[in-house]
């Protein structure tokens, strides 16, 4: 993440260190291929127009959760959020379009509206070092919180109560409403989108898994950025707001913290922004342990959900669903296992494999901690594909509820479009195992092949890289086998 305010305040002509390119992949700039797309993204009204319908749906969903039927599969709040939205997010948006959800997300809408006091136009002025006039207290977010630990812990906390969250419309609405409120309040007090960057629990895993996405927003030519005096992308100008995500595209080499708001497409005076299509899992660099632990948390949660939600054991379901079963003792056992798995056991096992990797590579100059952090990248393709494999049954088994709740969103007996009586009908359930197997193997393949890049970066020679990769490939294989047992064993 580029801490723009410190650097720009200290040195008006910014010296930009360009990132090292270690692996080159073929990329195709969609903005060059499609002038229409470029025109759409350059339009000032673009983001407002894509958020607006989403905001309306979001409003309906919150209301439905509060006043509609408490039966989850008959309430649009549950069916649209935890079946439709989740599947589209994890299986389509993240792998193919990076953080495109952040482009249309309604959560920061009111906060950003308050900061800008504008829906579409840009305000010229001065706010600390920016060339945009912004409202609110504009405080600096504390440096020690400038990481994704809050998102890690927040997401793990929410997921601990997942059995309640994904089945009770009221709870879903309260959580969404709280996030909307939080997004607004934080924007009033702190600069830019601190809620999205540091607090939003969804943003945390989007940031990690967007590294694997086949789409990226980047500088077209970094030399142009280096020579650029205007730097409207990060400081704002009359054409666009300063990047609300604190990113400077001139040295941006990862998708993690770019919310694809497209302001830089508008503000760049050099027309130097590219929206590239690239191969899957092109970014391989994990930069800090908070990102590594996001990978472990996501992996542990995918395993836990496979047991609790897709599994068959009634006792575990009762523990996770303690608010109904009353088994609070069991709930604390379950929560303890979940938290210790995510934060201690899985990372601990991975640390052992990292140690093995160091020993097998024969390279002493790299610490186990560096190996642990670097190789935690393999959890990105591995975890993302495991989550997609987990999510396929959610959609294909329960997707038919979408058809019925469209006609009766509150579960009040309406029949708006004549589909309210559409019966639950799983789609091709006996073939889902084949799909899951293929997805898991693809994840394993990317974990190993991209793991080699990581290994080479750590160990510097081909031989050491190959030897160091073997234990980590073993870890990836064990994880894949565990998911195979969950899904088809």
């Amino acid at each position: 993440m580029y801490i723009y305010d410190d650097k720009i305040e200290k040195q008006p002509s910014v010296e930009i260190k360009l990132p090292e390119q270690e692996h080159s992949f073929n990329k195709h700039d969609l903005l060059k291929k499609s002038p229409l797309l470029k025109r759409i993204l350059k339009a000032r009204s673009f983001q407002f127009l894509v958020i607006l319908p989403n905001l309306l749906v979001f409003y309906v969903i919150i209301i439905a959760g509060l006043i509609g039927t408490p039966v989850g599969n008959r309430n649009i709040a549950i069916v649209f959020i935890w079946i439709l939205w989740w599947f589209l997010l994890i299986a389509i948006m993240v792998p193919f379009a990076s953080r495109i959800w952040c482009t249309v997300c309604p959560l920061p809408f009111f906060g950003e509206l308050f900061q800008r006091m504008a829906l579409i136009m840009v305000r010229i002025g001065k706010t600390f070092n920016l060339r945009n006039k912004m409202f609110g207290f504009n405080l600096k977010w504390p440096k020690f919180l400038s990481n994704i630990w809050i998102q890690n812990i927040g997401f793990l906390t929410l997921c601990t109560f997942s059995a309640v969250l994904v089945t009770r419309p009221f709870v879903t609405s309260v959580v969404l409403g709280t996030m909307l409120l939080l997004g607004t309040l934080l924007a009033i007090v702190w600069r830019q989108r601190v809620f999205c960057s540091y607090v939003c629990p969804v943003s945390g895993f989007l940031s990690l898994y967007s590294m694997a996405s086949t789409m990226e927003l980047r500088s077209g030519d970094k030399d142009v950025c280096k020579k650029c005096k205007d730097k409207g992308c990060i400081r704002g100008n009359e054409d666009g707001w300063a990047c609300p995500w604190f990113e400077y595209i001139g040295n941006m080499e990862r998708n993690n913290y770019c919310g694809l708001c497209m302001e830089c497409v508008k503000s760049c005076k050099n027309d130097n922004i590219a929206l590239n299509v690239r191969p899957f899992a092109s970014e391989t660099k994990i930069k800090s342990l908070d990102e590594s632990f996001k990978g472990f948390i996501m992996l542990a949660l995918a395993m836990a959900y496979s047991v609790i939600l897709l599994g068959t054991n009634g006792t575990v379901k009762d523990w996770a669903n303690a608010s109904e079963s009353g088994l609070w003792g069991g709930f604390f056992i379950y929560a303890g296992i979940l938290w210790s798995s995510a934060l201690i056991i899985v990372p601990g096992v991975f640390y052992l494999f990292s140690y093995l990797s160091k020993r097998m590579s024969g390279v002493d100059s790299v610490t186990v901690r560096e190996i642990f952090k670097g190789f935690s990248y393999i959890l990105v393709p591995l975890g993302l594909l495991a989550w997609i494999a987990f999510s396929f049954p959610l959609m294909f088994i329960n997707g038919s509820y979408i058809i019925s709740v469209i006609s009766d969103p509150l579960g009040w007996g309406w029949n708006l479009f004549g589909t309210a009586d559409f019966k639950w009908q799983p789609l091709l359930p006996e073939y889902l195992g084949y799909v899951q197997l293929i997805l898991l193997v693809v994840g394993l393949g990317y974990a190993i092949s991209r793991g080699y890049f990581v290994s080479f970066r750590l160990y510097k020679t081909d031989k050491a890289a190959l030897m160091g990769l073997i234990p980590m490939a073993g870890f990836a294989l064990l994880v894949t086998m565990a998911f195979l047992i969950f899904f088809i064993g």
Partner: protein
Amino acid sequence: MKSKYIVLPLLITIFGSVVGFVSGGGSSKPIRRDIVVKARQYSYEPDRFEVNHGDTLHIRLVSLDVMHGFYLEGYDLDAEIPANLKTFKIRHPSEGFNWKDTSEIVIIANKRGKFRYRCSHTCGTMHPFMQGEMLVNPNILFNAGLGATVGFALGMLGMIYFRTKKSRT
């Protein structure tokens, strides 16, 4: 990755799947199995049962609390189980909603693999996640899949080995 080396993981994957398939064990002599499945919020008992390919299954369904469903994937079977009754309704989803009263389901386990049975009648908050598993041995998909996965991992490492061999020598 150079394209010629991609053949290696593919070959080892196929080899692994064949090994997994063959080592999964053959079929034993079909027998009759009587199974009572008890449904309660939000699980079945047994939550998993194993049979062999060709076995004849006599399944009785009982609900211990509210009305539940029993949708057995792969076998075109759906049931509605009223609370505390010995009879229940069944239908074949491919034939629509022609429910028939019965006290026992008889099916021949003629498909191999894992088949989930799910509650098809909204029974409470966790209803969408109420399910059990019927395992018809040998589980070919799992055995072959596991072999293929191990083979694929080895093949990937082999591919990297050969791809980087030139720079090592």
